[in-house]
């Protein structure tokens, strides 16, 4: 029934565009676009051709285009794109309904394709199993593989343990710097004042090194931690082009 309706639409000689008719038939659900028998379609075409006294190329062109559209819609719906690509190994993969900006596409034709895409998208979940013939299968894991994985995991465990022991050996408890205990609100405020004073003088980005007193590792950490707090509160912006290069500070709000 659907095939007949579409066939009639294509072969009507009046000015109504057949694309609009197909669109309306699909939209009003009078035709199921997934249920068009393409072989019947070509049979009807052949019988019309034999009835015609002279060949009407306009009609044959329309039929080829319509059949191609229907076939493409049906193929996409069945998820057979991969199958087609498998049979055309040497060819470039076919883009799905891509339009070239310069090529004129009939708006109705475009609407049919968009509608087909919309329907396919909304019915996707119904087709959980795609009829693909080639599927990579996975195999069961053997106990030998499990044992070799265990061997590797134990090696990693040992390596990490050795590393941990080596690091712990080098730690001198007296030298552990407890950042939390040392980071008092007053320290943050003192450093903020220092930064603002420097900014008042230079009105430029401040080099982190200019804030250091002793310049050793502990001093660097003790100075940098309050800076992180200030940056987190939106008072500063920290810049460093590359790791281990100079750190610059930018005052964001100016003097409070």
């Amino acid at each position: 029934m659907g095939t007949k309706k579409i066939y009639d639409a294509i072969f009507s000689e009046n000015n109504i565009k057949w694309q609009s008719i197909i669109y309306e038939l699909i939209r009003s659900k009078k035709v199921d676009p997934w249920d068009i028998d393409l072989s019947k379609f070509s049979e009807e075409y052949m019988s019309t051709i034999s009835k015609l006294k002279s060949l009407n190329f306009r009609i044959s062109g329309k039929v080829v285009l319509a059949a191609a559209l229907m076939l493409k819609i049906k193929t996409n719906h069945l998820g057979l794109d991969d199958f087609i690509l498998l049979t055309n190994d040497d060819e470039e993969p076919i883009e799905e309904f891509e339009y070239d900006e310069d090529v004129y596409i009939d708006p109705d034709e475009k609407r049919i394709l968009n509608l087909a895409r919309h329907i396919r998208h909304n019915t996707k979940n119904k087709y959980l199993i795609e009829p693909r013939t080639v599927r990579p299968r996975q195999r069961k894991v053997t106990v030998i593989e499990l044992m070799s994985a265990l061997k590797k995991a134990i090696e990693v465990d040992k390596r990490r343990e050795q590393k941990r022991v080596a690091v712990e050996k080098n730690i001198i408890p007296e030298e552990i710097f407890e950042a939390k205990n040392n980071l008092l609100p007053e320290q943050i405020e003192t450093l903020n004042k220092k930064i603002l004073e420097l900014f008042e003088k230079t009105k430029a980005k401040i080099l982190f090194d200019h804030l250091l007193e002793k310049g050793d590792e502990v001093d660097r950490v003790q100075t940098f931690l309050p800076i992180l707090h200030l940056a987190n509160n939106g008072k500063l912006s920290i810049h460093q082009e590359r790791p281990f290069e100079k750190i610059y500070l930018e005052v964001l709000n100016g003097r409070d």
Partner: protein
Amino acid sequence: MEGIKGQIEALLHCRPKGLTLEEISNHAGVSSKGLLKKLLNELQEDYSKRASGLNIINQDSIWKMSVKDEHIETIQEIARPEISKAVLETLAYIAHKKSIRQADVVRIRSNKAYGHIKELIENGFLESKKDGASKKLCPTRKFYEYFKLTEDQPLE
């Protein structure tokens, strides 16, 4: 009946991860679960009788078509294992310890272990029990059945 059996076989072939009885029923258009179960059992028997390289298995209510254990070695090179190397290492480590805190596994196997553990729990190889603030992980019965091991057998 043979037609439905063929449908079931095709469905199992197309879905390597397997299907539930409900899914088979929906796709084959057969509502009687009893009939489906009977046909699945028959199909299972057919495969075991005809000395095929494949078999039909029912694992945690999932029906699957898989390669028989005796042929795993043959296909080892061409088929990917269903558990990836990194995930298998995490599983082996947990199974070796029998019971271990998730935090300890992550400390040894890095942050990626969170993903491995999630996948292994989802696939039924591990179970997780609350242990204070952390979780305790243990291999499940499925793990022992899958690798044909016994719980008292030390993994080393």
